């Protein structure tokens, strides 16, 4: 088996270099020639994947949705922590807001415009509950990185606590985190709504990627064990305990949200107004 498997990843944080350098070294010890290319944003990464510049991309769910519109891609693997996430819409405990219907006409703080978990999915969920008429307050940190940076969600939470917004949207884990770190002290907020479970990132394989290399990549990922002290720091950095087989059943909510706001067209062109990655 010859050749190099080339993966695209988005540089949303300096630790991305540490992570993929570590994976590169580990794959080398297993006989897989693996290398990576960093992109500043997911739109460029997806474009490069479909243009054949890379074989695989470590894609956000939104990047997956776009790639799937652009060509016959497959989802190879994902983290255990990418499965069955939920987002929540929270209000201050003393706000007097008791149901989602009370949000009509009010200000809802969300993450970056391209954040699946803190913007697109929870707003779609509110719409499904009949709440369409809200003032959306975006917290655009690291636009183009599809909400990978926690800063947008934290700013939305701060806006809620300061009274600049009436509600805030965030992933369930960040509601827990913001309570622990004191951004939203425990008991100070009430969860008004919770989305159904959805999935997050995956390794997206380009059409025409070398099947043997991709197969080897997949089997090596799935055999990575959290019990292995060489591997564990890499998994800790990337935030997982185990890789799982890729599945595409968890992206329906995001597909619907993309349709509702016209984020991409059917061919995967960016059609979102005022989205400048």
């Amino acid at each position, binding site marked *: 088996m010859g050749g190099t498997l080339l993966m695209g990843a988005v540089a949303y944080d300096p630790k991305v270099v540490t992570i993929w350098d570590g994976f590169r070294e580990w794959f080398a010890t297993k006989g897989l020639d693996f290398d990576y290319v960093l992109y500043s944003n997911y739109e460029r990464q997806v474009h490069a994947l479909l243009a054949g510049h890379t074989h695989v991309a470590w894609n956000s769910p939104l990047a997956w949705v776009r790639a799937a519109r652009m060509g016959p891609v497959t989802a190879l693997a994902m983290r255990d922590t990418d499965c069955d996430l939920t987002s929540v819409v929270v209000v201050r405990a003393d706000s007097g807001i008791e149901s989602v219907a009370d949000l009509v006409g009010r200000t809802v703080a969300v993450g970056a415009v391209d954040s699946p978990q803190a913007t697109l999915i929870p707003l779609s969920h509110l719409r499904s509950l009949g709440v369409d008429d809200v003032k959306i307050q975006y917290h655009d940190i690291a636009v183009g990185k599809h909400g990978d940076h926690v800063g947008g969600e934290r700013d939305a939470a701060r806006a809620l606590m300061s009274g600049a917004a009436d509600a805030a949207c965030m992933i*369930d884990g960040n509601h*827990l985190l913001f*309570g622990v770190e004191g951004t939203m002290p425990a008991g100070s907020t009430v969860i008004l709504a919770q989305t159904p479970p959805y999935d997050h990132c995956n390794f997206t394989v380009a059409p025409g990627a070398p099947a043997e290399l991709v197969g080897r990549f997949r089997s090596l990922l799935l055999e990575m064990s959290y019990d292995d*002290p060489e591997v*564990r720091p890499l998994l800790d950095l990337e935030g997982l305990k185990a890789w799982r087989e890729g599945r595409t059943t968890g992206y329906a909510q995001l597909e619907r949200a993309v349709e509702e706001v016209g984020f991409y067209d059917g061919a995967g062109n960016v059609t979102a107004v005022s989205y400048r990655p």
Partner: protein
Amino acid sequence: MAVGERVEVRGRAPELAVHLRAWCRAQGHGYDWPYVVRGGAEGAHRRGAEPAGGPHAVADRPSATWGLAARGALVEAGGPEFAFALDEKEAVWTGAAAGIYRQALAAQWDPAVAVDWDEPFDLPEEVEAAVVQVMTYLIENENAALVVPARFLGQIHPHFREVVAVLAVQVADEARHVEVFTRRAELKGVPLGLSTAGGQASLLTLLEEPDFALAHFLLSVLGEGTFLSLLSFLERWAPDPVTRRITHLALADEARHVAFGMAHLGAVLSSDPGLRPRLATAVRRRHDALAATAGLNSEVFDALVVLAAGSFTPAAIADGFAKVQALEADMDEGRRRRLAKLGFDQSEATELADLHTRNFM
């Protein structure tokens, strides 16, 4: 609970189900409200972990991966390796370290409290200038005695924490000595004295010695050992109460440093007798390196005479000169005694004591 077993979670917090889901995901457990299904990741950090020695057992060669971990801690596998160059018990350890450390802590003193800086005294101009010159000399020597252990401190594996602790306090002791000698030098507004090229060259050879045992031998056994005589001399013949007090306080600290040096070198020599000729060579090499320098500068020598004289009359100067001669004999005798205690035979002890730098430290 075994992996795959379930536990039901109950609670009154309204967010419990939301938070439990997020927590389970982060911890690698399954979530099936109101049950948590135990995953296999928990405890992984302990699998393959290695104890960093026993809590009461000092390892002969602590692993580089034990790093900064507490002695006896369980160290997770896969951690970084720390390049502590001094990682052999034989080279650094002495069982006396813990006791010396306790003594050192109990004997700490605060210059602001232990010394009456306002006690009135008035010295003849020449004697005050002599005291200031001696203080100038002491300060640069104390600086050397601070830097040498500080340089090795960061190289010793933290597993040998008692040794690290003794050296850390020793560094703090020297910082305090620098402070009090500086304060005495500046007490009467007389400008500081001369720092000579020969004196600094002698101290530089101490700083440049890369071997811990050799550096410790040259600094603490020979240098600070010699300083015990000097500080004792200064305390005895000090012309003013402040000089008498600060040299008394410094002397007690230096005696502890010498005791640690002797204990360390004694322990190393007992397991490695081959070190003894290397120690001798180090003394000869330092002597050769300093052969072209002036040794103790005349300013310091004269200052010691005047300080001991207490006044500038010919009779007092003659008396001071005799006292300094006795000091040098006492220093020589002390060096020979300590070298003999480390197992050098009489003739070699005499030869090496004689070769020790004329700059005292």
